[in-house]
């Protein structure tokens, strides 16, 4: 017999695609720490500020990981966050109930996720197109019902719990992020649903032949993404004390970048929840550093784009070298 299963349980290949983001993160962090030391990059307040500012992207990236690991894409998250912030603010204004207001935001997100899922599975639209359309529909509606004006929130408890507050010196948004990542990581890594998501993204036909309800898996993935985008909207409302149609503009792109940087393949079938967190933080650090460096917003945009391209390229190249070896 050929050497059968040498070293039975221990021989695991090193997942370079998943590890790269951590290495890049450390390099970028050290680089900015040295370069921007005089500008206070390493100050605790600045670091906590980064965490606060990236919280929404980080949370939406959990949903993004599910959707992309299942082989789909969700472009609606930024628009959903905007509309959810508006809904929360409106309900709070009219009714005053925090619970109802939060429910309104989250339910709206869930609803859009369901619609996305149905469009992709039942009507077989490509996810890119379906969610591109829904994104415009949602943001347009948000603009229309608010007439482009902000809906102010005047409820300290709400803003404390959902954005502005902190426990000790730690912003409450950090706790929200941790909570969502704990749940997300559990579902992704430890439940059978997580396996089903990966199988559906890895080879939908084979998953179907394995007795998995792939349509259901896709719909639930979109719902998770929508729900978290809805929560993101509530958190925007809390942090900025208002609901507004323009929140979360471009978030869908940040989420995609964070998720891909984190080691999830756009083609589906592999994914890393914690990688998405690191990916989001990486984006947050870059944004923060570029602002500290006093760059114009044009320059910021250019450099941000370049860094994303270089990071993904580095990550892919290492994988190629690793494979060729």
């Amino acid at each position, binding site marked *: 017999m050929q050497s059968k*299963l040498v*070293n039975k349980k221990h021989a695991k290949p090193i997942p370079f695609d998943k590890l790269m983001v951590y290495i890049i993160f450390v390099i970028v962090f050290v680089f900015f720490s040295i370069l921007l030391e005089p500008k206070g990059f390493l100050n605790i307040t600045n670091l906590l500020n980064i965490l606060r500012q990236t919280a929404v992207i980080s949370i939406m990236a959990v949903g993004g990981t599910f959707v992309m690991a299942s082989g789909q894409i969700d472009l609606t998250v930024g628009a959903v966050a905007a509309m959810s912030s508006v809904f929360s603010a409106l309900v709070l204004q009219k009714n005053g109930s925090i619970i109802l207001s939060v429910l309104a935001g989250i339910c709206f997100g869930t609803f859009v996720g369901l619609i996305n899922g149905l469009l992709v599975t039942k009507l077989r639209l490509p996810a890119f197109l379906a969610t591109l359309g829904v994104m415009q529909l949602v943001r347009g509606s948000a603009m229309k019902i608010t007439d482009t004006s902000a809906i102010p929130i005047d409820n300290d408890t709400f803003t404390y719990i959902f954005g502005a507050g902190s426990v000790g010196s730690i912003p409450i948004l950090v706790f929200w992020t941790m909570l969502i990542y704990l749940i997300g990581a559990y579902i992704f890594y430890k439940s*059978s649903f997580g*396996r089903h998501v*990966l199988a559906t993204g890895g080879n939908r036909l*084979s998953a*179907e*032949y394995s*007795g998995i309800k792939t349509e259901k898996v896709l719909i639930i993935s979109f719902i998770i993404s929508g729900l978290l985008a809805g929560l993101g909207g509530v958190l925007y409302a809390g942090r900025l004390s208002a609901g507004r149609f323009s929140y979360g503009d471009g978030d869908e792109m940040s989420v995609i970048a964070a998720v891909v940087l984190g080691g999830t393949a756009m083609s589906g*079938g592999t994914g890393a929840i914690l990688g998405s967190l690191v990916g989001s933080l990486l984006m947050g650090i870059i944004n923060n550093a570029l602002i500290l460096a006093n760059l114009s917003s044009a320059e910021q945009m250019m450099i941000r784009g370049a860094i994303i391209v270089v990071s993904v390229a580095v990550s892919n190249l290492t994988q190629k070298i690793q494979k060729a070896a």
Partner: protein
Amino acid sequence: MDNYCLKLNKISKSFGVKVLDDIDFALRKGEIHALVGGNGAGKSTLMKIMTGVYSKDSGTIEVNGHEVDIHNVENAQNHGIAMIFQELSLIQTMTISENIFLGREIMKNGFRNTKKMNEETSFILNKMGLDLNPEITVEHLSVGNQQMVEIAKALSKNAKILVLDEPTASLTDNETQKLFEIMHSLKTEGVSMIYISHRMNEIFKIADSVSVLRDGKLVFESIIQETSIEEIILHMLGSTSDVNLLNWQERSYSSDEVMLQVIDLSINDQITNINFDVKKGEILGLAGLMGSGRTEIVETIFGIRKKLNGTVLLNGENLEINCSADAVKAGIALIPEDRRRQGLVLIHTLKDNILLPNIKAYEHNGWINENQAVNATQAKIDEFNIIAKSMFYPINLLSGGNQQKAVIAKWMDINPKVLMLDEPTAGIDIGAKEEIINIVRNYADQGNSVIFISSELSELLAICDRILVLHDGVISENILRKEILKEEELQYAIQVS
């Protein structure tokens, strides 16, 4: 000796473990050389080294007496070497001629010269005796014809040495016949071929000489006239193994109780009013040509296809199956025909693939018990003798036959009451075939029912208690195994009826 067109000297290759060990191999001009060996013996790897897909660790390659460097597929092509892969590699959405000229399109004034390419494609196809329109998209071709197109593609690049890796695994008998004819005519034109197959009778039909690989070593080489099936199998399995060809064995279990009953099942306008039953402990064979409806019937029972009407009873109870998940819940499993597309998630690990249909069983209070999952996987790997570096490696790195064993292993974990297998032994070596047949037999002996589809009649005759012959969606015969005396009778029933 200069009648060798290709020589491989002391080729070694390791992927962490040694896969090829000092292989010497020589191919004469104009011969068909069969390369055989068990699953994972290293056949495909050796050929991929020769054709520039993999790089060798050591050794040299000579073409027509000159040492050559082959680093990529293009190098190999320039030396006239081409390979038809085990996994077909045509682009499904492009036409035949676009595929054949992919990467070296004929241009005219900066435009693709479609007319010229179509003409040349027609010319090659005609030379091979194929009557196909060069402008058909490949996805509309049968697997057999796709294979022919692959060969045409290689020939159009002036291949003088052609490697065919298990080309007949998914061909019908007629298509196989056609392929052999083409191989014969290529031979007379001076093309040398290396032919990999697990089907011994084919090798004796077509090959001039044979080499046997075992565990990465070349253990035997002979002119075909000077050897026998038994001798080859002996070398494949190693001298210690006893050579036990596929023979019918008396079944120990028999029952009159019906397990699965199919009543008036209609699937499309071709396949209508199908009626049959399977008893407890019975192994029912479905025979027929490709396209006769065998796959459609099992896929419909499994809920992958929608039925038009008809009922399926399991243990006398009506089965409402609308999707594959319902079938799994009812205890029905299907091992699908195409392992790479339907059977496996290629980018996932061996472990994830094996556990996929039954992952819920390892979930307690919402948590997957990793230890239990690993142990269950290990048990399946041992039981089915799956050769892999580790259960955590992606399954596409396993040899073809071991991938197939994994597809079967993944379904045995749910302990189905009805097990349906669609061409389960395609690409599997003799030893593993025997193992799979034994597994199926034991499984049926526990009172479970089996529906077994195969295009290899000797295999159906070895394992089935009863065989249904399908013809254009109609069951034309229902024969007890005992009533069939010779393989030819079954062959006749399938072809004519």
